[in-house]
């Protein structure tokens, strides 16, 4: 008597597990649609003609066109803005990483007195966001003669990327045994050589995580380039998109093409480094 009952119970419970699994998958699918749909919608719109869009704004495209991309390229001066974004992002990224490398090396490996205080001072700068000091920051950059220049934005990016970089690299350097450095020193290596030809290669994972994080925020940032570059021809792609969307004669297919152009580089980076980004190195890094 007990056997059929227990097997029935097993069937019921396995059915319940199946059902929950389906419900869970269903919820996850709906959420994935919610996250992906706005992108798909924008891609579709960017390939519609103006007439096709006003006839059916929500539908799939009837005849595919790339005219919006061509027009956006000219109106937004995409090659120029792309170059501006690349220069400022790369500059900010490299400068903040190099500055962070030097500080991390000094406070973890050079046994400098007060090193902890310097470390604390740098990471404490995290509490000063650009939004609350935006005008005085702009004034300072003007006073230094960097208003509307690449250097101005690069230096600001470097300063704002520094606290996290210093923290990440210091944590990484600390895990590297001091014996390695002593051995190199006995071989006659100087500090610069130790830092760049021994510690740097070992820290590639940390630098990769840091670079991805910095690339994403510097490329995507609006406030700093908007204020520092204004409407000059050195403005970044994000400022260009923001200004384009403010013009009243811009059609939705046109602005959609601009959006896709602006986010394409980040999507490429995401696809290339998906494994590193999603493996938790980055979320773990920020933590």
């Amino acid at each position, binding site marked *: 008597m007990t056997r059929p009952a227990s097997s029935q119970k097993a069937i019921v419970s396995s059915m319940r597990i199946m059902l929950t699994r389906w419900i869970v998958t269903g919820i996850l699918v709906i959420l994935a649609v919610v996250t992906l749909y706005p992108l798909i*919608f924008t891609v579709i719109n960017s390939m519609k003609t103006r007439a096709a869009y006003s006839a059916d704004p929500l539908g799939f495209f009837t005849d595919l066109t790339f005219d919006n991309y061509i027009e956006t390229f000219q109106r937004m001066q995409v090659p120029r803005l792309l170059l501006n974004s690349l220069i400022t992002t790369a500059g900010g990224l490299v400068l903040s990483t190099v500055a962070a490398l030097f500080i991390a090396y000094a406070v973890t490996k050079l*046994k400098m007195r007060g090193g902890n205080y310097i470390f604390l001072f*740098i990471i404490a700068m*995290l509490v000063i966001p650009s939004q609350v000091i935006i005008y005085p920051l702009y004034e300072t950059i003007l006073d230094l003669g960097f208003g509307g220049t690449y250097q101005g934005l690069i230096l600001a990016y470097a300063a704002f990327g520094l606290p996290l970089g210093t923290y990440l690299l210091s944590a990484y350097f*600390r895990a590297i045994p001091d014996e390695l450095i002593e051995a190199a020193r006995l071989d006659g290596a100087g500090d610069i050589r130790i830092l760049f030809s021994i510690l740097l290669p070992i820290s590639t994972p940390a630098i990769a995580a840091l670079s991805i994080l910095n690339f994403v925020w510097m490329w995507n940032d609006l406030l700093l380039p908007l204020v520092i570059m204004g409407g000059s021809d050195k403005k970044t792609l994000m400022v260009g998109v923001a200004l384009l969307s403010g013009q009243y004669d811009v059609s939705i297919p046109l602005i959609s093409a601009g959006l896709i152009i602006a986010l394409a580089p980040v999507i490429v980076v995401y696809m290339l480094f998906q494994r590193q980004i999603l493996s938790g190195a980055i979320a773990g890094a920020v933590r």
Partner: protein
Amino acid sequence: MAELANLASRPNRAEVARRPFIRRETLIALLFVLPGLALAILFKLVPLLRGIWLSFLETRGFEDPTFAGLANYRTMLSDPSVHDSFRNALIAFATLPVWIILPLVLAFLLFQKTPGWKFFRAAFFLPYIIAPIVVGIMFRQILAPDGPLNAVLRAIGLAPLAIEWLNGPTSALLALTAVALWSFFGLGVLTYLSGLSTVSEEVVEAAKLDGARFWQLLVYIIMPLLKSVIGYWAVLCTSGILIWMFPLIYALTKGGPGTATVLPEFLVFTTTFQFLDRGLGAAIGMALFVFVALVSAFVVRRMYIEGSQRK
């Protein structure tokens, strides 16, 4: 001009270091920390000090500023748009439980290796890497009166809900917060997942064998284990609502209708650059700074404890 004096004194310190009784290592260490210190001081500390000074000045358009004591702070305290902006921030904070719980539930589902979890993880994180300004412009179309959202609502028989989202004071703030959540929750999922990776699967399996349901597992086993990750994520969301909304507001509503979606950081920007009242803008910035600093001090404290030299 205290900040200029501060700047001028910097090279002196390096000169002091050059005196022979200082060890060579100390000199090298000083040289190494110099570029970073210069960046932090020039572009963070100095602007902050200048901001504090500026908040005590009376600035009218392009005229020379004059010292005005606490006048800007008094104006700020009686300015209805300042009140509105902080009230709006409070309303946005009321949605924090969703910001904290939703990614946790999703991360826990993915952690249990639900079929397709890798795809879902990649999909959920995608919005986070898209520039907020792009997100904002995209959602202006999605939320338009004849946009896809309202089309879906009408199609599933919820036509009364198909409103002009960005035109009603409450719905606009709600929409802004929801769009921010859309672009941000994926980072939460990843953060929780990296926290969960330290939880042994045996603990979860054992609890399951004991007949624990999903919610029981989550509330009694996972949440206590992830207390510090949840705390960290809550801090991140709080500062996100305070200082990461600028591009979204800029693209979606420009603060409107009225002041319904003006958050303090946006008010700093408009007061400074549109109404050209830099003194008042600086004062509002300082008020915002106090809140941001209080919140992010937790993160800094934790980073310091983890990253400083143990003796």
